[in-house]
């Protein structure tokens, strides 16, 4: 079973993040990491490979520095990587990004595409369905469990108050939440081996994609501002009456 995993380098969500002068996500800081849910997608792919054989290919779209996360996934055990790197990509919207990724998927052989349920930066959570619409493959998204017999796939689609069991024939596209597994760390041996694994770099011209970037985008960001800080609240230190003070506040706000 050949699996493609989508990964994306994002600014570290644990640190201050901002938009740049062009109102795009500022990726120039030193604090870029792999998307939080992407690790779970890689782990899911590695577990399926271990059970069914085949190859795991990592696909990413981003600037040269995204090589760092590609190396990490290869260290975890992915077999090879495709890195789409082109200056014309910056400022693309989700629709254009999906067209670029779909063109790359068209060059690869896959039975399954696995992605995180959403990215840690824009967090739109729509890419698997955009790709399903473009490739015609079924999308089984928001999985907390994946099972496959090599011909069909069954997932538990996580809902707020339960789950739905979805099933489809392969090839298919799935996305995963962090409930699905516990991602492994790259081993020292894995990190050494990663250095010899192939990474193919592609441009938009290689993929036959002509329109990208802000000119092709169908949305425009007009402005961005820091959220105004919340007005400072009242903080009390408990010296025996903290709970009563809390109840007083809740009563004054009519919650009791």
């Amino acid at each position, binding site marked *: 079973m050949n699996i493609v995993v989508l990964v994306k380098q994002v600014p570290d*969500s*644990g640190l201050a*993040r901002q*938009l740049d002068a062009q*109102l795009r996500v500022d990726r120039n800081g030193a604090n870029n990491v792999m998307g939080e*849910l992407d690790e779970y997608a890689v782990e899911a792919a590695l577990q399926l490979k271990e059970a069914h054989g085949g190859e795991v290919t990592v696909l990413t779209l981003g600037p040269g520095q995204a090589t760092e996360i590609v190396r990490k996934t290869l260290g975890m055990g992915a077999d090879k990587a495709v890195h789409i790197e082109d200056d014309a990509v910056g400022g693309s919207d989700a*629709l254009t990004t*999906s067209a670029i990724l779909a063109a790359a998927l068209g060059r690869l052989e896959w039975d399954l595409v696995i992605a995180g349920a959403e990215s*840690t*930066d*824009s967090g*739109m*959570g*729509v890419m698997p*369905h*955009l790709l*399903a*619409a*473009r490739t015609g493959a*079924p999308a*089984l*998204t928001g999985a907390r469990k994946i099972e496959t017999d090599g011909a069909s796939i*069954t997932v538990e*689609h*996580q809902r*707020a*108050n*339960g789950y*739905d*069991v*979805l*099933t*489809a024939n392969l090839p298919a596209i799935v996305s995963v939440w*962090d*409930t699905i597994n516990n991602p492994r760390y790259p081993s020292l041996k894995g990190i050494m081996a990663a250095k010899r694994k192939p990474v193919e770099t592609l441009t938009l011209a290689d993929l036959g994609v002509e329109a990208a970037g802000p000119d092709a985008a*169908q*949305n*425009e*960001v*007009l*402005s*961005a*501002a820091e959220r105004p*800080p*919340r*007005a400072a*609240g*009242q*903080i*009390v*230190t*408990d010296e025996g009456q*903290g*709970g*009563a*003070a*809390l109840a007083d506040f*809740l*009563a004054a706000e009519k919650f*009791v």
Partner: protein
Amino acid sequence: MTDILVYVPNSGKHAAEVLTLARNLGDVAAIAFDDAAEGLAGEYGAAKVYRVEAPEAADYFVDPKATVLVDLARQAAPDFFLLPSTDEGKALAARVAVALDNGLLTDVSGLEADGTVQQDAFAGATVVKSKATKGFTLATVKSGATEPAPAASSPAVESVAATVSEADKRVRITQRVDEPAGDRPSLADARVVVSGGRGVGSADDFALIERVADSLGGAVGASRAATDSGYYPHKFQVGQTGTTVSPQLYVAAGISGAIQHRAGMQTSRVIVAVNKDADAPIFGMADFGVVGDLFQVLPQALEEIEKRK
């Protein structure tokens, strides 16, 4: 007049919010796949309802509904097409975007008549205004974007019969499993949410958080640190990788307030925090905070709350 197409799922508050927001901008044509959704559209002021009869659609994931939505959007040529920002709403919006080659805006928290939308970026730290530059404004609306306000109408109902094509049967729903949260309201819709974090210390001690939630008629939530430690089930996680909530009251007990958590609750109307650490970032966003041991503070608060009832 501004024409607004709204996809109405059959579940309550979030759909009612989208209808309320839409009604304030123009004439709403609602798309309903069942009686509950049709009823909701009339309660919240829709001028028209497309009542889709596609009994088979319920057996399949996204695809059959997406086909109907694409057809209706093409036919209605609206100024706005709004859906709730749920997994389903986003999936449907993505399908419409590709089929009609139309831009897509997700998790919108505000909407103006000229098509300008407001979105929260970076866990709400940045507020962004955007606009569609081609086609219509296709947007999914975040839960809590507005207070739902009923306004009964008698919408004109147009019946739409849809057959499900073989291609749209590619993802079958073979089983639906509900894991009810008991008598408590659902996390995403609750008016009050009481959450516990690492400071709760154990699964057993989450009973205290549950007691506070029950006393205030609220839902129970947990920080990622608490769910990762196994103190409380993951499906109750509030935060970036969990549920985003926007209740009237959010109580954070033993939660430091890491960005991951703030992403899921910072648009709550009133925030209350209890934490031992006076330097915890959660106090920076709290309307009322108690620096102290939650096992001292919460039982005393509970006792006082019960006295006042």
